[in-house]
């Protein structure tokens, strides 16, 4: 489809996946029903949370997580500036103000708990910890900080399903009160558009379930199965439902998720072997972080923005697609949100990084092509 020699990412849908969707379509039942229930069970088993509630997107997951956490007008929510824009949009949907904080460094570009601590005010209600590019943020430190200040912790796991925390098997999304996940088409577990909220708290799970479907006290499926046709609406909810074909696709794919993440990790290891020690290039995170990451993206660091831009242009000429994430405070919409003193590490991370092609089906030849282009640029 694309002209790229090596595209940024590649989604492979297996025949088994296709059949699962077709079977669902042939059944004629397309709105939340038994497949959604089964997918949610598989998700909660995989993530290690007591509850998993599927929603229409990662953005919707963050939005409902904010509502369930009781965030509202007048509240502040601390959000790292190096993330996708949905992390900051979610508090705004509920009338709260995102307060941007810094990340640790370009070599460890997740939210910096020390900077979070500096930005806590009496209005602070929650912290959104983003596990960026698949690498786990330091949620243990943030948990302690939030507990000490009576704050809620929401984990933005949109890019990090399956990533593990240091020193054990615990996965991301289970330390905060709520974890928000994405099944967008480029993600490790993708269905097109989709998302999920994970939580151990039954009351929070019930609230997310209620709000995802207009706070209706019964669903179309319940009524189809013979429940009373009369329902109440107990809150102002949304239509953030996932549908059955996407649940069927997710359910089919989740069985291969761990293998798919392992394949991504193997590619990252191959990249790192080829690229480590090159003059003018730095590789974020260490081997331990690589082992625990679920590898949404593979970012490398160049000396500065100008070099990074030339680097990307060269790779593009070589037929290699790359991308990068701007820092939130460099967007027109968030320019006014820059705190005094700036957010130097987030800015440096954004300006210096370049994400190289990464997918679960990438071949050694493709890694070679990219590695040679990178080496060529640097020499």
């Amino acid at each position, binding site marked *: 489809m694309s002209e790229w020699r090596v595209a940024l990412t590649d989604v492979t849908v297996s025949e088994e996946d296709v059949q699962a969707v077709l079977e669902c379509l042939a059944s004629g039942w397309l709105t939340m029903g038994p497949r959604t229930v089964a997918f949610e069970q598989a998700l909660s088993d995989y993530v290690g949370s007591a509850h998993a509630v599927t929603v229409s997107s990662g953005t919707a997951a963050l939005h409902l997580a904010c509502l369930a956490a009781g965030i509202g007008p007048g509240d502040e929510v601390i959000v790292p500036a190096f993330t996708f824009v949905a992390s900051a949009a979610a508090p705004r949907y509920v009338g709260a103000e995102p307060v941007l904080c810094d990340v640790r460094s370009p070599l460890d570009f997740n939210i910096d708990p020390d900077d979070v601590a500096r930005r806590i005010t009496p209005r602070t209600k929650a912290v959104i910890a983003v596990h960026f590019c698949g690498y786990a943020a330091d949620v243990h430190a943030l948990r302690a900080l939030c507990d000490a200040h009576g704050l809620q912790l929401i984990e933005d796991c949109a890019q990090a399903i399956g990533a593990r925390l240091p020193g054990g098997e615990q996965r991301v999304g289970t330390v905060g009160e709520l974890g928000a996940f994405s099944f967008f088409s480029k993600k490790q577990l993708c269905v*097109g558009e989709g998302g999920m909220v994970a939580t151990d708290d039954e009351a929070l799970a019930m609230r997310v379930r209620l709000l995802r479907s207009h706070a209706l006290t019964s669903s179309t499926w319940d009524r189809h199965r013979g429940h009373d046709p009369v329902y109440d609406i107990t809150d102002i909810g949304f*239509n953030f439902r996932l549908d059955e074909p996407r649940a069927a696709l997710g359910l089919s794919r989740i069985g291969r998720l761990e293998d798919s993440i392992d394949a991504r990790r193997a590619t990252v290891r191959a990249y790192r072997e080829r690229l480590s020690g090159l003059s003018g290039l730095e590789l974020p995170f260490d081997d331990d972080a690589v082992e625990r990451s679920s590898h949404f993206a593979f970012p490398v660091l160049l000396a500065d923005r100008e070099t990074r831009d030339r680097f*990307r242009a060269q790779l593009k000429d070589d037929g290699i697609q790359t991308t990068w994430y701007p820092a939130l405070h460099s967007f027109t919409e968030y320019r006014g949100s820059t705190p005094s003193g700036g957010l130097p590490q987030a800015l440096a991370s954004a300006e210096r990084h370049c994400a190289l092609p990464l997918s679960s089906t990438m071949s050694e030849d493709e890694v070679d092509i990219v590695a040679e282009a990178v080496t060529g640029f640097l020499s």
Partner: protein
Amino acid sequence: MATATSFPELPLFDLRLEPQDLDAVAETLRSGWLTLGPRTAAFEEAFAEQLGARHAIALSSCTAALHLGYLAAGVGPGDEVIVPAFTFAATAAAVLYCGATPVFAEISSREVPSIDPQDVERLITSRTKAVCAVHYAGYAAPVDQLKVLCDSHDIALIEDVAHAPSATLKGRKLGTWGQSGAFSFFSNKVLSVGEGGLLCTDDDDVAAFVRSRRSHAMTSGTWDRHSGRTDTYDVVALGFNYRLDEPRAALLLSRLARLEREIARRRELTIRYRELLSSVEGIIVPFSGDDIAGSSCYVIPIMLERDGTQGEVSAELRERGIQTSIFYPAIHRFSAYRERFPTLSLPVTELAARTELTLPFYPHMTHEDQDRVVTALHEVVRP
């Protein structure tokens, strides 16, 4: 006899897809491109053309379409939007998403349960920013009158076309009378796909606004970057993720080709239903036979003449294997809205909501099944 959880023999709706629909989805999945891309663009173009609208923007749901339609009309905190209460809650909830206040208008009658233009006129204040007309059950609300009224007050007319794709008033497609029209592709709808929606408009600025806000107000999309058109993006406003995805766009595109044929079948069956229902004493069948040609014939609503019998008639039909629903409970009577509008009284809407039942209906419904529903009504409705 049906138990508490059993599937009805005659369900409210029954969706059947064709082999070519499944092929279209399978082909999309195998392509590996699942987010907004060529299939969404093709569906939008085909839908716009069939509707005769300048723009069609595919979205994640009709709720999302209403939200963006209101925002595009400039609805914000302090504003009022006049909506009917005899509709699904999304019509009003989307007003609240914008920080504005829904102002509930009456319907004309149980015979014509569409928003009453005279009541709308009475409710217009200096804070009114928009009016939302719902084309209930697939039948045109009086958008001709509402358009004149809205134009004279310089307020936006938004059409909630969730029930009424390809329906018309005076030969003009519903959704094209107002500033924008919000469509639903929810699984029980005339053109269904699971979850999905769309906003149509002839206004270039509204279209650009909605396209921007459906994907986080980013100045370029994943497809643009994949196809090498652009390298990076800016974020220029507070946007949302209201995107449809490619498998659903492929399914919609495949089904759109049969839409007119399916609606024609719905009309035939509706005419037959109405003939049969005319013999049932104690019910009102809303709208008239003359309205069918312009309707998408989404559902078959009836109103029980005797107030207070809705629950028992529904339960007795259920015992006969016939599923019914209520389209709709009055929005202002739900707990969440009573808190906000504790003293609001809309007698016509409330009576309609207390006496309405929606009967089983789908394009492949057999005459025998229709007969069975009507026979059951003869047995259980007490005039």
